[in-house]
């Protein structure tokens, strides 16, 4: 913050007075600053308000951003009062000077004028991460969402209203790359050159800021801040209560939500094409009211899952899963990795071929294959589980005979779903007939 302020000068040009006689007026501090931080791109929208002292007539305002990661093409200034009397004629990026812009302002008023300056910067980021704590019976989970905001922008933002955007924005240029350009809009007819590595303000004014941060963290710890969530366009806006001070180089973790007793389903999946011969554990729930959630979408992030092992609150670590953005009302399936305590064993019990067709040369031109599979499913756990078994037949010409319910997923895949009581096993059989060669045509005729 100090870097920008010290370089932000107002130059009042009286008509007829040459450049040599311009007055240089240092601006007061920012009155307010608001950060809107994106996580799908390295980008933050900064909005700050300041009170400029303008003279009637032509004014020049110099804004410099050395050692920051500001995108100079995003700079905009708007008067918040007397807008009809103040004309911001142009913004000039003077020759042979880097990181400096000059606003030419035609003012019809004299005195203090509140203005709002907005720009995009890079170097600030946030991410969501989660902690899940399953109850001993694994029927419910306490889900805590956290956000971690990191400031590597080269700029200290003190007492900033901090907002976070959940969503995937489309951007053409990296803000960091725009910030490093020698010329803000590049040169005509050239691929925009980079002007070397950025000089980030990493020289921390350590001691004072450590104290400052420690103090504000302590404050946050004592009274956890609320995060207000609202939908805008395709995005969600999280507004952190009050203001935050995040010096450059520092991160801050805040609690986003804390929901207890989220009912979960212990879902296990078996699909040879995807997971080999292993059963993979999923934790399933829904982002809706029934699950004590559903107020807003849940931003993607890493979830670490623990399980309560006793009434003393001791924990065991179950696994972790990264998950995607979850809209309201969507089912969540978190992949916690392969397990050995649920077993699915498909066994080929019988194999036959029949219905041979022969062409005029006497060669085989069609046949059927009949496979009988027995599938055994064992739940060795002390909790009830749901098991989904997908079988892929590698052909769309098939018939299935079984007493077990199944769902056709697509043209060559079916899914069997079983619910198993604790420490129990189930088995089922299916007979798969696949049609080959000319017999495919018989299958088509019969099915049409």
């Amino acid at each position, binding site marked *: 913050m100090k870097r920008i302020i010290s370089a932000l000068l107002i130059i009042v040009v009286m008509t007829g007075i040459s450049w040599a006689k311009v007055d240089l007026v240092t601006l007061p501090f920012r009155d307010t600053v608001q950060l*809107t931080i*994106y996580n*799908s791109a390295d*980008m933050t*929208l900064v*909005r700050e308000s300041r009170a400029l002292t303008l003279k009637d007539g032509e004014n020049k305002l110099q804004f410099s951003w050395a050692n920051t990661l500001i995108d100079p*093409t*995003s700079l905009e200034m708007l008067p918040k009062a007397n807008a009809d009397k103040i004309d911001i*004629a*142009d*913004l*000039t*990026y*003077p*020759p*042979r000077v880097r990181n400096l812009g000059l606003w030419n302002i035609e003012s019809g008023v004299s005195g203090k004028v509140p203005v709002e300056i907005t720009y*995009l910067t890079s170097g600030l980021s946030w991410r969501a991460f989660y902690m899940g704590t399953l109850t001993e019976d694994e029927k419910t989970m306490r889900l805590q969402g956290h956000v971690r905001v990191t400031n590597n922008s080269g700029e200290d933002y003190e007492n900033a209203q901090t907002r976070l*955007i959940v*969503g*995937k*924005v*489309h*951007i*053409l240029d990296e803000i960091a790359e725009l910030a490093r350009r020698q*010329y803000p*809009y*590049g*040169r*005509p*007819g050239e691929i925009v050159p980079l002007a070397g590595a950025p000089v980030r303000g990493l020289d921390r004014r350590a001691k004072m800021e450590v104290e400052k941060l420690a103090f504000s963290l302590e404050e946050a710890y004592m009274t956890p801040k609320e995060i207000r969530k609202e*939908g*805008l*366009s*395709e*995005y969600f*806006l999280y507004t952190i209560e009050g203001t935050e001070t995040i010096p450059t180089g520092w991160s801050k973790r805040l609690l986003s939500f804390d929901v207890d007793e989220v009912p979960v389903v212990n879902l296990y999946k078996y699909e040879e094409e995807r997971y080999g011969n292993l059963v993979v554990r999923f934790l399933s729930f829904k982002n*809706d009211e029934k699950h004590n959630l559903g107020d807003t*979408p849940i931003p*993607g992030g890493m979830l670490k899952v623990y399980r309560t092992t006793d009434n003393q609150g001791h924990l065991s670590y179950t696994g972790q899963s*990264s998950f*995607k*953005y979850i*809209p*309201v*009302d*969507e089912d969540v399936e978190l*992949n916690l990795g392969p397990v050995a305590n649920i077993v699915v064993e498909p066994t080929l019990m019988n194999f036959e071929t029949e219905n041979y067709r022969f062409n*005029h*040369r006497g060669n085989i*031109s069609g046949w059927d294959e009949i496979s009988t599979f027995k599938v055994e499913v064992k739940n060795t756990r002390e909790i009830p589980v749901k098991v989904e078994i997908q079988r892929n037949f590698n052909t*769309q010409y098939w018939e299935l005979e079984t007493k077990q319910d199944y769902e056709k*997923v*697509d*043209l060559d895949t079916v899914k069997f779903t079983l619910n198993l009581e604790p420490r129990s096993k189930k088995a089922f059989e299916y007979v798969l007939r696949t049609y080959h060669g000319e017999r*495919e*045509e018989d*299958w*088509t005729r019969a*099915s*049409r």
Partner: protein
Amino acid sequence: MNGKRDKILAILLLLMCSALSQARIKLVALPERAATVIRLDNPMATLIEEERVLTLQKGLNKVDFSWKGVSIDSDSIRLRPLDHPGKVTLLSVSYPPGEAALVWDISSDSDYAETVRISYLLSNIDRLITYKAIADKAETYVDLKSFLVLRNFSGEDFDRARVLLDYGEAFEQGIDHEETKRMLFLKADKVPITKVWTFDAARLPWDPEPLENRNVGIPVSYRIVNETASGLGEFALWGGKARLFQDDGHDSTIFLGEDVTALVPVGAKTELYIGDSRDIVVTQRKMTDTQINIRRNNKNKIILYDTDEVITAKIENFKDSPAILTMIQHIPGQWDMEKCNMKYKKKDANTLEFEIELPARMEKGPAVKELKMHYNRRNVRP
């Protein structure tokens, strides 16, 4: 001409008496540049027009025009006498070897202080257009601003020039070498927009389930029409980068995304892609794909067949507002639609476009619609 810089155009008037040798004699140097015009109406090249006064003597005059530190297309240089066009005539142009220069042979019927207009294409000076649009919270309109960015890296300082675009009034502007200037160029409030979600089956994954922890974003665009009803329509909107913001209802804005628009002629529309929606989920699957009407040759080899295909696409809207999804499906080759449960527009021989109205999410869950297409591809050769 700006005398401060050495990268300047030098114009020299050479007088030559017919009896003298062919050596060029530089007698008059550096006439002052008068009215200068920078024409930026062609995005490919910038034309400079400048007026200068030449002191001509009766007979043949040689005028040497040279440049240094700037890039001028020498074939583009033109000279036009303004005061005595019938009496001052350009006879020929010569290019001296190894020099960034040319020599005009000008015939004059008398002694004149003749104003001439010299024009040429100058490299490395151009303009860009950028847009900034702020949508209202309901996303029904945008307040649109367009900025003109002048970039001068030509090697030449222009203290004061008339800048001309392909529309609008000319304006006075000075711009130095290596200087960039951005100025507000167009302001149009409350330009209506249509928000468009597009699922193109050829571009996006069909089944999000196997992707596990990755979302399939449905591209979202704002459609703007350059017409009078939109408060625009006076001239073509130049192509350029557009940054879109949205009013957040708290006296602030959020950044929605950015895109580049191509030139938008009057009456045409542009679609600005702002980002992806993860609240509309499409799960498309092929449920049937079999060969029918098979023809075989003498060797029993299949030589021609039709297909029987069924595609389903489940569309879920998790948003708490309705949306219109544009779904694009592709069927290659010759085909007949057997049955389709939704109306479509045939965009070309192989492209079908569906406009699917999705209600808002309901209490019991997302709004769900399912497209079912049953079609036959005809006369397929293996």
